[in-house]
């Protein structure tokens, strides 16, 4: 099995407003067809998330977050060096979501050698396919942040 040098995982639900952000960024980065980079969209199911990155050297997780910050604010956490921040430890489907997948993989020795999380503060997570202006504006800035991590 070939290894993904860099795996971009855009997490989200394309039909829940700003939650589509991760998927949209994965699509944009995929269109750039950068060598050594694989981009996937993911619904955040934890068991398959841990499997998704098992052959990657570097992983960047991208997801919209809801922390109370200004909409469009970009967060970056180096998950290789730090645990999932408590303030983002919100609960997902049956209280077993992305934070649990990351921390469980850490305990089980199944985290990639390098893994970062890029979160963008969303504003509206209601049903619908359109992003809010603030989050739309943050897409290109977020892509720049991601590309910086690839150096």
């Amino acid at each position: 099995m070939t290894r993904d040098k860099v795996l971009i995982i855009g997490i989200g639900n394309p039909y829940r407003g700003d939650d589509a952000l991760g998927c949209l960024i994965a699509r944009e980065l995929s269109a750039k067809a950068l060598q050594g980079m694989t981009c996937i969209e993911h619904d955040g199911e934890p068991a398959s998330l841990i499997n998704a990155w098992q052959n990657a050297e570097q992983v960047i997780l991208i997801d919209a977050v809801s922390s109370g910050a200004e909409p469009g604010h970009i967060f970056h956490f180096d998950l290789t060096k730090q645990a999932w921040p408590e303030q983002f430890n919100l609960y997902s489907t049956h209280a077993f979501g992305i934070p649990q997948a990351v921390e469980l993989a850490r305990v089980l020795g199944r985290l990639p050698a390098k893994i970062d999380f890029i979160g963008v503060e969303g504003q509206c997570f209601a049903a619908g396919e359109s992003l809010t202006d603030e989050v739309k504006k943050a897409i290109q800035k977020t892509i720049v942040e991601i590309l910086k991590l690839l150096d």
Partner: protein
Amino acid sequence: MKGHSADKNNNSRTIKVDYLARVEGEGALFLKIRDNLLEEVKLKIFEPPRFFEGLLRGRQFTQAADITSRICGICPVAYQMSAIHAMENACGVQVEGTLRELRRLFYCGEWISSHALHIYMLHAPDFLGYDSAIAMAKDFPDIVERGLELKKIGNDIMKLMGGREIHPINARVGGFYKVPSSQELATLRQKLTHAHDLALKTVKWTATLKFPEFSQDYTFVALRPPDEYPMNEGRVTSNKGLDIDVSEFENHFEEQHIAHSNALHSVMQPGNRSYHVGPMARYALNYDRLPDDIKQAAQAAGLGPVCNNPFKSIIVRAIEVVYAVTEALRIIDDYSQPKQVAVNVKPRAATGFSTTEAPRGLLYHRYSIDNQGLIKDANIIPPTSQNQKMIEDDLSRFVQSCLKLPDNEIQYLSEQAIRNYDPCISCATHFLKLNIDRQ
């Protein structure tokens, strides 16, 4: 669990917990204790209702499966199956043969995935004294890995049959949009052979857990088909003599508004009685439908034909995982790719009914449609609405038996007792706050 605080003031004690972890959705538990007697138990669900039934009105009968599957990320197959069967019932169509078998295979995937998640990641930490599966994984990495592996194989079935793992999109009224090739199922078969071994180990391991001594004379309600363990169809039966067609469901079960909860309470009539749906109910009412080797595995794990200790539901779930894996293997072995992926279903003005067995219990759907196939009316009763009163009844008796324990232990055991039901509060409307008022 977050935000725990305790106040002591003379005779009264109050414990507040921001929410109960490892349960889907938002809710709270209120326990009122006076003079060492438990006076009141309220399981409050305060996540707002989502009005799915209203949203379905005016939509095409073919859309209900994909819309209702959005109600839950854990049991979308159940929603799809109940919606599809109800629409076919309205239109006078019965899907048989390989397409019926494939629906059953699809459901096996959801049972394996959902049960493995609950057994290993949500419920087992209670029995072993951990706050979470992450903490448990530090001491029991191989066991947690086994849970992840099993869940993944369930997900693989859902992905193959549903097009993707969460919110599948491949099932439709009349059948599927695409059916798997024999080669695709052969690949799945290899994984399932391994899953069978993992599932049997799961049964043996759950049997080694320490269970609180507690049992109830439950009214179990589950489907009972003529000749198989229930998933997609069957008569609605109970261990107390109920035996009805699904179209009679609302004559015997009634959803009621309760002031302390945003979720409707479903009760059995007459007498507004609580009843128990889910793995223990299915097992009790369909034990004779299990293959002999699975019955033997259950016996070796200490289960009789009926299990009345809700804490042992973790073993029953493990037995159902073995069954789902065994059934999936049988379906794959008998499979011949059908030429037709779906039968034609023409709408007619009628009302259709269906209950299927979601991992956590009966899921009832009723739809009225017109000649054009537009949905005029919908009613959905999820398993957690049906179990909510039963959970309160369990807590009323169970907590009374352990009132001498300190509040933090009562809290821990109450949460464990709630998780016996793998409640999906999202489906019922959604997180739990525990409040013990003791004087």
